[in-house]
């Protein structure tokens, strides 16, 4: 089940916002589609990211895939643990597998994202 307290981007990333800070990661659907994750090219702290553009790249044993930023802002923290143990994303995509914290330029961007129900309908539609 996808958690209710976070928002979802159509490129299969999620956001948990708290004030200006947004923790982001990839969804359970994305980690399952990718399969065993072997590497993540983590973004660098202090770099800026723009919503709907690539912020990071993930490699699994099957594919390489861009991680699309769900919101715009500045990276203020990255999950360094993923550098050596990227498989954490497979194990706990919504928890320990978070990728970065973005200080948002515009908090209202979060409002445009999907809630859990919309996202579930969206991936069902995609699977068709």
């Amino acid at each position, binding site marked *: 089940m996808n958690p209710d307290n976070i928002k979802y981007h159509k490129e299969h990333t999620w956001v948990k916002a708290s004030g200006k800070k947004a923790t982001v990661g990839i969804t359970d659907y994305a980690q399952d589609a990718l399969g065993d994750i*072997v*590497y993540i*090219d983590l973004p660098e702290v202090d770099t800026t990211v723009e919503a709907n553009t690539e912020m990071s*790249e993930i*490699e*699994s*044993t*099957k*594919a*390489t895939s861009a991680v699309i930023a769900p919101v715009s802002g500045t990276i203020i923290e990255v999950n360094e643990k993923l550098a050596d143990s990227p498989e954490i994303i497979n194990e706990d995509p919504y928890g320990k597998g978070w990728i970065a914290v973005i200080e948002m330029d515009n908090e209202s961007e979060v409002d445009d994202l999907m809630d859990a129900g919309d996202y579930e309908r969206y991936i069902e539609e995609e699977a068709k």
Partner: protein
Amino acid sequence: MKLTIIGAGPGGYVAALKAAQLGAQVTVIEDTEVGGTCLNRGCIPTKALVASSEALHKAKNLEEFGIEVTGDINPNLSKIMERKNKVVSTQVKGIRSLFKSWGVNLIEGRGMILTPEKVEVQKKDNTTEIIETDKIIVATGSRPAQIPIFPFDGEHILSSDDALNIKSIPKSLIIIGAGVIGCEFACIFKELGTEVTMVEMMPRAVSTEDPEISEIIEKELKKKKIKLMTGVKVEKVEGHKAEENGGIHVYLADGKELVAEKLLVSIGRALNTENIGLEAVGIKKGARGEILVNEKMETNIEGIYAIGDVTGGILLAHTASKQGIVAASNACGKEKRYDSSVVPAAIFTSPEIGSVGLREHQAKDKGINIKTGHFQFRALGKAHAMGEIAGMIKIVADADTDKVIGVHIIGPHASDLVHEGALAIKAGLTVKEVADMIHAHPTLAEGLMEAAEDVHGEAIHAPKK
């Protein structure tokens, strides 16, 4: 016909053998060792070191293959160098015995053109000899280029020549220049345990390759924890006496300061076109000092040819060899022209890079309407079985004719795989023809078939787009 060749590198020695086969009386002058840079200070010794570093890598990761290791796995640099030297000396002997077999006369010393019919040799024992000749081939090659304000000292500021004979594994190394040589050494030293930082003036590593190749090698370097800074110039270097200053200090234009035990400068190569008598006979040179030649490898002076690095262009052993065959043939009266339309190139980083033909941006610049196809090694069963899944194959095709015009590979055995692409370009094959050919399973070459299929969105082992 008497032919004198100055330089016995991959250009000169091949020209010598070709000319001897065509019946010429050949003299080769070499001032260091036959085989030139390629065999003694370039291609071959670095590949011997790459092989050792790859063996070490595999040994460190044996568990992944289900093999248990008890005890430590350590590189022994002096033994690695011993092996490298043996590989080189075996090849050197090979060339020397081919010379003997074909009756090529090798004179050890420095050659200098006096007239188109006379070459002087300064021998190692300080005597000189004048060689009377009918024709001359200049094949004096190149050397590592240095930055005048901090020249090589062989101890702390190293050239690639020095790095090949290093006595101990440095704890830390800064490499200026993330081109072919810089990236190969970065991978070798990192595997041996050195902390490596690279500084590149251009916006990307291996900037002569397709940008997508640069992107992937940059990521692979990052995975290895090799630090790479691109688009930044080196302002100055201090601390030549490393013991006193805690190492070599490199100051960058962006204000950063780097410190390391040693510094490797790999910013390119300088052409050996000075002090060999070119001016005396009036041989025309270009802006970078390169000898100007036509497609027959003829200089402006009748009877004098030039081949390899001294002619500028791409500094590759195999282009020098081909030019040597062209020059030798023409000197012997068999007309031949040098065709540089298909030149495969290999970079022995980890993973390897192999490329041929046009890069995507080059094709666009030429106004060609292009299509590209990609295929990732990680989608191949063979790559998984080998435990080497990083990298991809990219095909650039002319969208109007469907012909293959560029193949760019980064991944396992890329240097060998690229030749299917080279042959496709040389033969003028279409993407469809490459895709239609049955490729053996399970092989890495299947990736080329799939990349060709992908040009038309028809790769079988790729998810729906």
